Each structure stands twice: as C-alpha cells, then as structure tokens.
C-alpha cells in the first residue's frame, strides 16, 4: 500500500463497531458486576481520605489503590468486554495491567521524602479529587440517558485514567513521566474513538485527561511550606 492510499483512509475506516455496541459495554459490565460497584465507591472514598491524610503511608496506599483500579478496569472492561470488538483495546488491557504492576512497585519501594503539604491544601486535594471522580461517571449517564451505563472509577478505563493523573503528581517529576505514558496514549486513542463514534458528551473526558496529562509532565506541586 502506498502513502497516498493511507491518506485516503479516515478514522471511521478503522472502527468496526457503532456507538450502540460501545455504549452498551458500560451497561453490560455494570449488570454483570453488580453489586461489586460498591467496592469501587469504597476505593474512591479511601483514596480521597488518604489524599487528605497525605503522609508517606497514605501516599503508598493511594498508589496501591490506583494499581487495583487499573488492574480491575484493564482485566475486566478492556480485556473481557471491549477487546472482543476492538483489538487495540486488548493491547491497552495488557498495558493497564502493566501500569498496575508499576504502581504497585512504586507504592512499595519508592523512598518518599519531603514533608506533607499543609492540611488545608491536602483537604482541598482530597475533596476536589473526590468531587471530580464522583462527577465524571455521570458523563456516560448523560450520553446514554441510562443510569446502568454509569462509568465508575476502577471499572471504566476512561474515568480510571482521568482520576489517576492528578494522583500521579504525588510522584516526583523525574519518574512521573513513566506513569504518564499510558494515560497519554489512552487519551489519544479514546478521543479518536469517541470522536469517530460521534459521542460528543463523553468525548470531553479524554480531551480533558489529555490536557491534564500533558500539564502533569511538567507541573510540580509547590513544596510544603511547613511540616504537619
């Protein structure tokens, strides 16, 4: 195939399914997983709580919970549900499992240094994260008009990635890039897919994640002004 031929392709030529099939993935996984969605909600609350606490142990716990979320959404949603209709989703599924392994290693072996941020900042970080992670799943509900399609953190990969990126700011910039590569790739893939499917409401999610990821490559939170 020549280069000219490749230019004659559009994104829709690579998508082998329609929006109905894609959006029903969320309904199906929620029906099949019920009532384990409760575990996802507990994970969200725990992460928010650990962000507020902010000490070394809490940081390790946040990364371990993120690892569990990546593992669950990768092995569940991507490999079991999305992969059979879209081959790249299978590759991402294995990528998510690898990311979970990386997060686990970071949680267990990273020698955290420095002081915790001020309590007020930690409070804002924890509650802000919880508000964001609680509201993002509703985008899919608004898109489908169906509560059963709710895209929860830890189950739906898009929300899992979006909610993980701010937490990755806990890691120093010199290693953070390694953890941001997959969010970057996922956001581009997801944005292209949702744009082609014409699901404009949920298209907002990967675009916002992509922006946040790019910022996170360079952003460094201000060092703590004083210890707790």
């Amino acid at each position, binding site marked *: 195939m020549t280069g000219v031929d490749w230019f004659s*392709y559009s994104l829709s030529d690579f998508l082998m*399914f329609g929006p109905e099939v894609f959006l029903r993935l969320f309904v199906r996984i929620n029906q099949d997983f019920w009532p384990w969605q409760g575990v996802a909600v507990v994970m969200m609350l725990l992460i928010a709580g650990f962000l507020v606490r902010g000490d070394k142990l809490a940081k390790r716990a946040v990364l371990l919970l993120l690892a569990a979320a990546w593992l669950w959404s990768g092995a569940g949603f991507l490999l079991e549900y999305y992969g059979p209709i*879209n081959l790249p989703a299978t590759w991402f599924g294995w990528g998510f499992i690898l990311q979970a392994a990386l997060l686990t290693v970071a949680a267990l072996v990273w020698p955290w240094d420095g002081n915790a941020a001020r309590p007020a900042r930690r409070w804002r970080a924890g509650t802000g994260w919880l508000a964001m992670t609680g509201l993002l799943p509703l985008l899919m509900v608004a898109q489908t008009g169906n509560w059963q399609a709710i895209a929860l953190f830890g189950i739906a990969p898009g929300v899992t990635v979006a909610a993980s990126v701010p937490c990755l700011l806990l890691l120093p910039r010199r290693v953070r890039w390694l953890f941001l590569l997959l969010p970057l790739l996922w956001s581009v893939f997801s944005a292209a897919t949702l744009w082609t499917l014409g699901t404009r409401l949920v298209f907002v999610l990967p675009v916002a994640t992509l922006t946040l990821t790019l910022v996170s490559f360079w952003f460094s939170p201000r060092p703590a002004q004083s210890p707790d």
Partner: protein
Amino acid sequence: MATQWTRRQFMAALAATGLSVPMPGLMAAPGGKAITRPIPSSGESLPVIGMGTWRTFNVGGDQHLVRERTEVLKTFFESGGTLVDSSPMYGSADDVMGEALDTLNAHDQVFAANKIWTSDGGATREQDGASRRKWSIERFDLQQVHNLVAWEPHLETLKQMKADGDIRYLGITTSHGRRHRDLAQIMEQEPLDFVQLTYNVLDREAEQRLLPLAKERGIAVIVNRPFQGGSLFRRYQSEPLPGWAAEAGCGNWAEFFLKFIVSHPAVTCAIPATTKVKHMEENMGAQYGDLPDEQQRRRMADYVAGL
C-alpha cells in the same frame, strides 16, 4: 458418486430452471419473484441483494445484540436473501454470524462469503479454517482476498483450494474506491470468479473501467458500501422521492439506492449492512419488482446529484 444437494443449492437450481414458486415458510418474500443474476463462471443464480456485516455484526459477547442481529439475519433469509459476506477484519462478526446461523439452523440457506485478511501470505488456509469454524460450515462458497492484502500468495492458495474443492469460488475485494488500477490489472490477468468493490449512486468511478471489465471477463461483481456507509440516508432521507420513482420500481430511498446499483448490467449483487429488521425489510424490497432501465438510471443519478 452421489451428489448431495443442500437446501440452498436446490432452491437456486429451481430458480435457475424457472421452476421456483413462492412457498410460504420457505421463502416468505415481499412479493413476486426475486430478481437474481447468474454467476458468470458457473451460471448459478444469486439474488441481487446480499448482506454485509461490516460494523453491524461485531457486537462481542452482547447476547441482547446477538439476538437482535439474529432477527436481522432471519428476516434476510425469509425475504429470499442468500449471500452473506464477512471478514476476519470485522472483530467478532464471524463469531456472531456463526451463533446466528446456529440459532436459525440456517447453514444450508446461506451462500457463505468471507475474506482472507492477513499480510502473512502463507496463512490463507489457516485463516479460512478459523473463519469456517466460527461459522460452523464445511466450506465457504466464496473466499476473497480482502483489500488486496498480500493478494498474490493468497490468490495462488485460493486457486489451489478451489481446485481441491475447499471453496467453490474465489475473488478479490477493494472498497472506498481504492486501488482500482491495481484491481483492474488483476482482473485482466487472473481467473477470478468474483470481485467486490464500492459502487453507489454517488461513487460511480467503477462505471468507467471496472464494471465493463468485469462484464467482458465474466467476473461476478459484489457491491459494498451501497449506502456510502449510511451517509446517503443522512444526506437524502429528508428529501422527497421523485414522483417518477415508482415507475423505476422504487418505493423508498433504500430501494432507490439499491436498485440503481443492481440494475447495472455488470453487477451481480449488492451487500447492504444493517442492524434493524425494519431496514432489512426495506433493503430486501429492492430484490423484487421492476428494475430501472438505462434511461431511468441516468435520471436517478441526476436527481440525487441535483438535491
């Protein structure tokens, strides 16, 4: 040696000899006799409307959608359709088609068409076997090289498979109007039974070279993207059908678009894809009644171009 006839082959033979009559339950057709075209290399008749599976049968393990697609396939068969075309490229479409055929117990009704889609030129038989197992059939009636991918080694193997009786017909496909020059060259040089290409009331490049060449070389033509991937409906469905559409045998836009295609003398069948039973019924309407003549075809193309 005794020849075993499948129900589909028996029905096709009846149709070819003009002995076929509408039989409720066997062919609950919309009305009248289905329009068929002979495959030039054998004379076997094919109904002019087949069914594609691109983007419609790739539903994974969604049993709700598998049941819906099975109803679509059932409507297709009940309306007198036979040719179903799929590809390993279409995700889970082969698995879903196999499940639907099992549910309907319709393996003998289908003219099974599939494709070889791998850059590994030595994997032709392996991929054919994988697709066959998914469809639960002994052999594909038609096996095609998909989008000219590694077409030379695949075609050589398909020739051997045809000689061995592992497939009945062989072909090669393209879509979206791509690589027409290469396809023409292959059509001139290779002993093809079928070609598959894109042709519709707006995409008419095939009229220049490929369709006349197919006629001249005795190659059957399957037309994909007859609705331009659905965009013809999005663009024109809100527009009125012309007052003279009924004279051309068209009662709705689906029949208008499809009859324009299958009335071309070089076209053997078109393969629209749909997820809805209602749309399938409309599509299958194009297999019955009158076809537009050459003058009416020009008028149809002019009308759409002028909208």
